[in-house]
């Protein structure tokens, strides 16, 4: 069981689920951003697991993982900027208090 593709995929799936749970459960915008990072890293783990166990995918895996990390970084940058902007307006990082628009 250990050290097989499936076990890595299960692990990465769990990581993704944890990230999702974090995103759903946390109220702080920064924490939610971190949860998303966790989800993206779960994807990276998946990618790398595929690369490690499926020979033809090896080269690609590293490239993909690198690009995904880059995108995640960019996303985090934009995200933080927005979080700062809204923190200035609302004086709170708790997203469930951002509900002036609804229905």
């Amino acid at each position, binding site marked *: 069981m250990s050290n097989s593709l499936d076990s890595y*995929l299960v692990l990465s799936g769990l990581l*993704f689920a944890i*990230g*999702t749970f974090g*995103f759903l459960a946390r109220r702080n*915008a920064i924490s*939610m*951003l971190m949860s*998303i990072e966790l*989800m*993206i890293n*779960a*994807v990276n783990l*998946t*990618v790398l697991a*595929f690369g490690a166990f*499926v020979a*033809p*995918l090896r080269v*690609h895996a590293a*490239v*993909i993982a690198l*690009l*995904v990390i880059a*995108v995640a970084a*960019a*996303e985090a940058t*934009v*995200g933080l*900027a*927005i*979080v700062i*902007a*809204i923190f*200035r*307006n*609302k004086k709170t990082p708790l*997203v469930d208090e*951002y509900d*002036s*628009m*609804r*229905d």
Partner: protein
Amino acid sequence: MNWSDIGTISPVVIAVLVAAAVLVVDMVAPGRRDPVIVTALGGLGIVAVAILIQAGRSGSAFGGAYSLDNLTVFLDMLFVAIAALTIMFAADYLEPRGLPIAEFAAVLIFAVTGAMLVAGSTDLLLLFVALELMVLPGYMLAGFARHDPYSTEGAIKYFLLGSFSSAILLFGLAYVWGITGTTRVDGVAAALATVVATGKIAPGLAMGLAFMTTGVAFKMAAVPFHYWTPDAYQGSPTPVTAYLSVGPKVGAFAIALRLFVGALGPLKADWLPVVIVLAALTMTLGNLVAITQDNVKRMLAYSSIAHTGYILVGLAAYAGGEQSGLSAILFYGAAYTFMNMGAFAVVTALQRRPGVSSQIATFAGLGRRDPWLGALMALFLLSLTGIPPLAGFWAKAYVILAAIQAGGWLTVLAVLAMINAAAAAFYYLRVVVYMYMREPTGDAAPSSPGALFRTGLAITGVGTLIFGLFPALVAAAADAANVFHG
């Protein structure tokens, strides 16, 4: 990378340069509006020329990751038009609010660059990266009025949920890649074709499909992944809303074409039921909730959800075996761009003075206060309703025809779409009621848009009309852009 690759992606490259040039011009002459606009629009003009030069040609770049075909050209032109129109409408809105036009233009053009890259992507990885290039500037635009609590609130919701869905999409992409062993769209298709030929699809692939569908459905604003739409649309500065309602939406459908049709085409029998359900839910919920809205921006947000539903009918028709469903999607996208941007433009015009809300009451008596603006808004709304001979009518007719040709459940979907369209008339015409059948209230906003703005309005108006009177032109282009024939 070589020179030929650069040539193939020249529109994207030029667009990036235009964005940079806008920033440079703003540095040279800070705070001056006209040079920025001239640079941006002129630059976009050059991009358009570059795209048109490519019309009819085909080719690929980056070893097949990017492909130049008629679909790319069609979508690129649409994106350029969207960018140009947004800039035309934005200037009059941003200036009184002290928001920097150059930054806006640059970010917008970056976003469009991403969208153009999406249009040409034939590689899963490039597709994802391009998608992020398209949506990240979008988040920034949504929160562009950074001192406005509504704008930032919309932006954070958009951003958080958007990133969440991006991760989901990415997860799905990873699985597909892992199972098929390639990121190239044609390679994926070929691999999946053998999977289909050998029998059932693995649970892993099913999971991948579910994740990808969710991700794309989110970007399209399909129900039940639409939650961000009303809030982001309402909060964003109105010109941004105009952009968001068409740019990322057409971009999302571009992804759908490249990913679902191009790569996952062999599995279409599997995703067809899902798309049918999504389409039915999307148009119905969008319309039902739109009926209850009193804020025109929010109403148009729900309306855009409903239109997503109609467009999805075209995708479903394709999956149901009718190729022209894809042409219908493209036609719809083009028609929707003009009429919906026009509608938002009128809202923008009314909001020229800061502090004016987009409540429906601000439209009271518009037909009398400003006959031209009122008439144009009526034109856009009637087109959105689907009254012939306007653009929106042909878009619907095209989609419905495709659905009917596909037959079976798609016919039921077509009927549902039409019932929805009738219900939609209620809220579109409600605005007409306010404009023409009610007297102006005291605090109704004065409106005197500038020349640039009026030019933009004229373009959307004429476009809505021309698409309606001579639909054959656009239909032919959309048909040519449907590269998935055969």
